């Protein structure tokens, strides 16, 4: 039970960062299926920077920067060039797969210290919740506060109002004196940074190594989680915890030698994502930003 909870927190953290990245972009009306690629580039940049500088902090910052840069390219294509969001996002995924392979080619499998655990004095000794909640690295501790901060930012600040207005109705937002283009760029740069951090958390926080395509579809799971979260950062916490739990359970069953094929167990997060989509996708659609992607709902 204890290791299940600890595992859920560890596996849920990159998912939470990734889901927040997708939430902020979609709130501004842009679907980014390239999140998977952004995470990969973040993962490799964070890892290589950590190897070269010896500083995991520098790694996280570099990953955020790299993610934002890649998303800037995406923003230019979908905002300025009016390219189809879904197709461009998938092309971005391809670019991320290739770029990360190229950048990380000579670093595959290298071990690093990575992010160090910072046990909270006193609390870390508590039974069960101590190891599960209070013996992690800084990125894990920061994840939930960042989600709450983003929730507040989206729903209680003028900037958040502008982002939501652009996602609902760019024409009205423009008439009200907001430039949708600027707002969408801001949201996508922030999303890129968060996506980069999500990847860095995988490479220098969880795995402490780099392997090609190590995100294994987490970027797509995050897109499904956005729907579960109804585009609310606060609900994303619950979604990430649920999926972190599923991944953790799957790993736990494998190490316990349960007589189920590991390949069947590996399906769990994807099948769960599909179930969540089917359960929340229909009723949840009303919660979606009205101008989301436009092509997303069909006609352009």
């Amino acid at each position, binding site marked *: 039970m204890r290791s299940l909870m600890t595992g859920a927190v560890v596996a849920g953290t990159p998912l939470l960062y990734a889901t927040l990245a997708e939430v902020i972009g979609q709130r501004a009306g842009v679907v980014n299926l390239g999140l998977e690629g952004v995470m990969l580039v973040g993962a490799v940049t964070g890892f290589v920077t950590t190897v070269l500088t010896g500083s995991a902090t520098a790694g996280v910052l570099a990953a955020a920067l790299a993610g934002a840069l890649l998303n800037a390219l995406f923003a230019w294509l979908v905002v300025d060039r009016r*390219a189809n969001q*879904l197709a461009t996002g998938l*092309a971005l995924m*391809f670019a991320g797969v290739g770029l990360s392979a190229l950048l990380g080619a000579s670093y595959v499998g290298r071990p690093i210290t990575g992010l160090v655990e910072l046990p909270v004095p006193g609390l870390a000794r508590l039974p069960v919740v101590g190891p599960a909640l209070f013996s992690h690295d800084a990125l894990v501790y920061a994840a939930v506060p960042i989600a709450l901060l983003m929730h507040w930012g989206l729903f209680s600040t003028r900037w958040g109002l502008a982002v939501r207005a652009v996602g609902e109705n760019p024409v009205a937002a423009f008439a009200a004196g907001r430039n949708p283009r600027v707002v969408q760029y801001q949201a996508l740069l922030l999303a890129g940074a968060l996506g980069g951090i999500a990847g860095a958390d995988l490479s220098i926080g969880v795995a402490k190594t780099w392997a090609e395509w190590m995100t294994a579809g987490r970027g797509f799971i995050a*897109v499904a989680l956005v729907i579960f979260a109804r585009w609310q950062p606060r609900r994303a916490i619950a979604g990430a915890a649920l999926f972190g739990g599923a991944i953790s359970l799957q790993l736990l069953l494998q190490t316990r030698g349960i007589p189920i094929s590991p*390949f069947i167990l590996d399906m769990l997060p*994807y099948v769960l994502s599909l179930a969540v989509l*089917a359960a929340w*996708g229909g009723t949840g659609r009303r919660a979606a930003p009205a101008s989301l992607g436009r092509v997303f709902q*069909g006609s352009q």
Partner: protein
Amino acid sequence: MRHPRLAPLARFGGLLVIGLGAFALLLLVFGRNPLRAYADIFASTLGDSYGFSETLVKVAPLLLTALAVAVPSRIWLINVGGEGQLYVGALCATWAALNLADWPRGPLLAVMALLGFAGGGAWAAIAGMLRARGWASETISTLLLNYVAILLVHYVVFGPWRDPEGLNYPQTTPFADGAILPAWPGSRVHLGLLLGLLAVAAFAFVIARTRWGLEMRAVGGNVEAAHRLGLPINRYVIVLMIVGGGLAGLAGMTEVSAIQGRLRPSLSPGYGYTGFLISWMAGGHPVGIVVAAFVLAVITAGGDILQMTQALPGSVVNILMAVLLFVVLGRPQARA
């Protein structure tokens, strides 16, 4: 450029040059010689008859996986599940190859093709049904189903279907001769290429000359109006997903039968995803699909070469494919 028929080709050529140039710049940044890289790619794929035949071997599944995207895209459906549909098609075809091994070649191959189509189609139908009921966007569900399909193939080749004499390789027993698609003598170019070309021709015919093609254009153009006309929109959603998925499943059947001769986990180097790029580059146009499939077959084959001669990871060609699609998607558009 004046000639109306040459204009799209000239445009495609121009975009190709921009894409190749951008990738060359990137290679320069990473200290590689882009001219050498391109020379290696072209020499190995177009330079001799063996290389050319191996390129055609890759064109065959790409035509089918591109159609898997192009068919549903007639009515704005975005099928990104070609990869998974290909794997399920291969899985179903393999079942026939292993269990009906004593059948004569003709009927066995027909059953394998049928099961391949049915398997891929059924896999895509899941996404089609979710979409038709308004439960989930087919884009995300097809993506997620890819992972499940590939794991399913891993499960059978590591588990129940594993060849006990496979020397620790996860794979099924080799297929009987009757389950192998005929190939052009002296090469690996197989009947799947003809099948792919026929499928493209059939697609071109249906969209241009049949009532279905017209109705698809109506649904694709204006759902609301099509609905008022009484067109069965949900039926089109499910049927077109099944046909698309079926074609990808057929690609899985031809790969497993003609190229692998047994089911292996490394069935496809991402043919499903490459098919998606091809269809979008071609704008879903039949002739464009054939041209783009050939170009991307050259690039796919080139990835293996770059790995050997330039010490680049094979997946760098993903960058080239992405850049090409970026160029196509970001081109100045006449707003339709």
